[in-house]
């Protein structure tokens, strides 16, 4: 009973769709944990940093502060949610043992990784859309380079969804899925030019910021809206594509080795 290549490709496609459908179902089912909090948090950011403090800050990079931080806040939310979706979904499946449903199924490991990663991208985009809508209540956002905006959001969410996947594979308990977001991801995001232009920093901090990959992601995304960026857009995309390839490869290698999931 050997499946023909075409039949196997179709079976894989259906399997991949099913992973995505399940992830979408999870995002919607727990909307109070997935979609609502970013709307509330971003509203608070816009009110406090944008309206109250922003008025005193004046212009940054030639734009109103509110306008300047809006793309950064959207991207920050995309990063946190794409990461959070996969780390909690995959670790939850591992912890609850329903990951076995996928492990015993005739799906290649790379497809399982891709399915979960795109589930994270899906949540990143859903939440990003919510925050974008919220931001429009506070400021005007142009769409100078829509393809660039979508590409930057896709690559960034893909990279961090894969980061969540790797974290979930390696984690042995719930503490270990909160360490990386708390001690690495959040500081890098806050220091990645979400709330300020790195041109405002002193020399050493400016140089150090260039080691932060999130800077490139936020800058490229902001460029798509405002036409200004702290770093070169080509370099930013090169870094994002490299990170995506690297993280995907790492996740597949870990899956092939069964790290944390197979005895």
């Amino acid at each position: 009973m050997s499946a023909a290549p075409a039949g196997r490709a179709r079976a894989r496609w259906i399997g991949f769709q099913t992973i995505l459908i399940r992830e979408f179902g999870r995002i919607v089912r727990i909307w109070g944990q997935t979609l609502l909090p970013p709307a509330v948090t971003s509203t608070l950011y816009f009110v406090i940093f944008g309206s109250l403090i922003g008025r005193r800050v004046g212009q940054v990079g030639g734009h109103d502060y509110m306008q300047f931080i809006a793309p950064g806040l959207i991207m920050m939310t995309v990063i946190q949610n794409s990461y959070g979706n996969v780390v909690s979904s995959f670790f939850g499946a591992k912890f609850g043992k329903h990951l076995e449903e996928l492990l015993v199924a005739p799906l290649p490991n790379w497809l399982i990784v891709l399915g979960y990663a795109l589930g994270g991208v899906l949540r990143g985009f859903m939440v990003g859309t919510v925050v974008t809508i919220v931001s429009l209540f506070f400021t005007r956002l142009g769409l100078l380079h829509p393809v660039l905006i979508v590409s930057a959001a896709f690559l960034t969410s893909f990279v961090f969804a894969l980061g969540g996947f790797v974290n979930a594979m390696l984690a042995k308990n719930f503490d270990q899925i909160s360490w990386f977001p708390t001690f690495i991801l959040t500081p890098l995001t806050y220091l990645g030019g979400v709330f300020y232009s790195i041109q405002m920093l002193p020399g050493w901090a400016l140089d150090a910021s260039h080691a932060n990959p999130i800077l490139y992601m936020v800058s490229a995304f902001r460029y798509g809206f405002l036409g200004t960026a702290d770093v070169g857009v080509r370099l930013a995309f090169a870094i994002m594509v490299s990170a995506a390839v690297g993280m995907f490869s790492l996740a597949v290698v870990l899956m092939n080795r069964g790290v944390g999931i197979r005895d």
Partner: protein
Amino acid sequence: MLALKLRQLAKTYKNGIKALKGIDLEVESGDFFALLGPNGAGKTTAIGIVTSLVTKTSGVVEVFGHDIDRELEIAKSCIGVVPQEVNFNQFETVLTIVVNEAGFYGIARHVAKQRAEVYLKQLQLWDRRHSTARSLSGGMKRRLMIARALMHQPELLILDEPTAGVDIEVRRSMWEFLRMINGEGTTIILTTHYLEEAENLCRNVAIIDGGRIIERDSMANVLRKLQTEVFVLNLRDARTAVPRLEGFSASLADDHTLEVELSRGQSLNQVFAQLSAQGIEIDSMRNKVNRLEELFVRLVDSRGRGGAGEAVA
């Protein structure tokens, strides 16, 4: 054709425990096969390797001729597995769980929905299809795992302690269902602690202990190897003394219950004749101990006395 072939299958865990020490096993297509053994014998490890949840240390596994080292996806598509522990998302609905499972095996959604209706109805879960899995009873969860495993219509169904913790009525209905799908051609491999279950359902059996197969035969042959059997006779009238039974060992469990041990070759007719001659009437009768259990203890004991291998921790 062989549904499953294991050759020198071995597994040593990272902590040094040798769960399997090179087992050979063949299961014919269409068989209803029991894999028996005590806790820690290696049953679940063997099943884990076949279903790719556990990585083997060495050896060969073939499912319907497909080597899991070379044709893993095809081998997996032949297998349905019902694990020992509940392993579905407790927050998903029954219907979602089975339809998604079919999707993971490449079954189109509209086909999956049709099959879901068939299997959920057969397993008396259709009325609960929109309930979340966590709201189901223990027996329902077990049946849901069977329905889920059947969604891609596997040629080989592996059940690891499928009726653990379910009541007798549910167990019996699950037995009927398993007999039915086996009758339709699905090969079934069953591990169970309810040895009566294996005796009732399975045609062939392997007994595994300490990571080795210590017996592999037809169920009928295995049962023939038993030396003695104890019958429990319910007496119509109360008795204070054990009736005299020439050639048999007998005892009273209580004033209405007589236990009689028969060796191979002895006939129950002789027991009834002697009791009848004494004016003792029997209302009903049953086996006292599970015969496979007795066999199992005997096999493990004899192996222990022979010093044939180290025990698994």
